[in-house]
């Protein structure tokens, strides 16, 4: 069993609309599996079911060997899921350092202790510092999260996800809203992370997808219509059909 994440026959209906139509996919070790598709293809719905915020109507989700279909978000996180949000979702009043430290603390445990000093837990702050070092956010570390730029918040999302030492990452549009330079930096960063941590990447930025993905699946109207390497996807007529009118997006 090498799949870190496996989805079988996932179905989600909203009223009469099939938002997720029998989706099956896997994420294997060492892999960057990109999920692309036009707007409204059901990518967000799918991601929300994978991380546990939305319950599917049919189908199953496995994290490693565990059936996670009915597990809550925190339970899935404990099994090794790490995620970033498309619209950044952080602790806005806390500093960047505290945002990361809380994720480190979550991994370290003992969070029901009411008689210790969280500032005295040296290993938490050391791990946090290690993550901040060389991240480009080090000199911003003691600002509250609502005071930093959008690009920095995107970076912080990633650091917070990494702080939990996840077995795999669900990245929901990590490039969204980034400028060209910031995007390039993010790609470099993700390439480095991908050496050790497999990722399921939902992304609109095709440059990033082709730079990062080892496998690409295309989601259209809730269905996966194609899955393969970058070249196979480029050449796939069904994919070209789906992106018709937005052809320039593909290359």
């Amino acid at each position, binding site marked *: 069993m090498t799949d870190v994440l496996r989805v079988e026959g996932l179905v989600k209906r909203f009223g009469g609309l099939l938002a997720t139509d029998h989706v099956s996919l896997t994420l294997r070790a060492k892999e960057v599996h990109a999920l692309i598709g036009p707007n409204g293809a059901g990518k967000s719905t799918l991601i929300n079911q994978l991380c546990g915020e939305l319950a599917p109507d049919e189908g199953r989700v496995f994290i490693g060997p565990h059936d996670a279909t009915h597990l809550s978000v925190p339970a899935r996180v404990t099994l090794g899921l790490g995620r970033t949000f498309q619209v950044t979702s952080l602790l806005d009043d806390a500093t960047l350092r*505290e945002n990361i430290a809380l994720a480190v603390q979550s*991994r370290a445990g003992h969070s029901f202790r009411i008689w210790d000093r969280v500032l005295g837990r040296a290993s938490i702050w050391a791990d946090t510092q290690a993550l901040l070092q060389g991240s480009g956010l080090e000199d911003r570390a003691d600002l509250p999260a609502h005071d930093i730029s959008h690009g920095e918040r995107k970076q912080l999302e990633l650091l917070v996800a990494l702080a939990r030492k996840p077995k795999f990452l669900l990245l929901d549009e990590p490039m969204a809203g980034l400028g060209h330079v910031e995007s390039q930096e993010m790609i470099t960063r993700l390439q480095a992370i991908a050496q050790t941590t497999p990722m399921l990447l939902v992304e609109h930025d095709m440059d990033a997808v082709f730079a990062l993905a080892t496998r690409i699946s295309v989601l259209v109207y809730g269905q996966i219509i194609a899955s393969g390497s970058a070249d196979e996807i480029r050449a796939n007529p069904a994919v070209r059909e789906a992106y018709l009118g937005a052809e320039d997006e593909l290359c």
Partner: protein
Amino acid sequence: MRLLVFALGFGFLLAVPFLTQSIGQPALLTLASRILIYAIAAASLNFILGYGGMVSFGHAAFFGIGAYTVGILFAHHSSAEPLFGLIPGSNQMLITLPAAVLVAGLFAGLIGALSLRTGGVQFIMITLAFAQMLFFFFVSLTPYGAEDGIIIRRTNELFGLNMRDKTVLYYVILAIALVFFLALWRVVNSSFGAVLKGMRQNERRMAAIGFAPYRYKLFAFVLAGMGAGLAGALMANFLRFASPDMMHWTKSGELMIMVILGGVGSFFGPIFGAAAFLILETFLAGWSEHWPLALGLILLVVVMGTKGGISGLFDRFGGRGK
């Protein structure tokens, strides 16, 4: 610098009995005792409301439970008949206070477990409704005085102190308040405190890094209920009675007013808030029987017009940020 301010504040609280004596206003000592007790209750509410973001509108229920625990234990001590034929009564503060804290915690566990299944507006109304349910329960509790409540003829005993002496009782309350606030300081700055502050800001984020919101919020709710139970137990000792009025929903409202007057989520805010509220009440009530009108207007102005309550003002004028 900070330590100096604390020391000065604590020194002032130590000196209160002498000050009230020397200006010939012994009634002010009673006011000071009530302020300390309400400060404990308001701080326990602030713990879930200010730090945890849970707007509980039924906090007076636990205050009342604490008071009734002391009252019921005293009644069974007087009659020498065990409660349910099992639990002997007591008039020892070292027993009644922990008992009140535990019973209040138990009720908070039950009410919290149900209420925290919801959120937002529903949570506010449900905590309010549960508190009101307990209110009616005690109103109908004929063995313990129904709506008149229980008279506690003598304040609980502690180390052979003369608890009838108002000054002694004040110092007992002050000592317990000090212990309470030191404990609260530890909890707020603990690993759990860090998680709780995160829950207020963004539950979705907390879930995404692996914290299950329900459990942490419930634990906080229980701790807060215990704090209110302690305050209620002290109040029962101080007033020498326990009545359903202590858990009337307007009492819950008053606790919230104290929290917002002092500054939501500020550690010492509830002390200032309780002081401001009770001094205002005493002053306005002496001035006119229509004092709730003035209180309402002041509250409206504070809520609509300011941020951070009294502590916020101090911070702004003191020039130190939050």
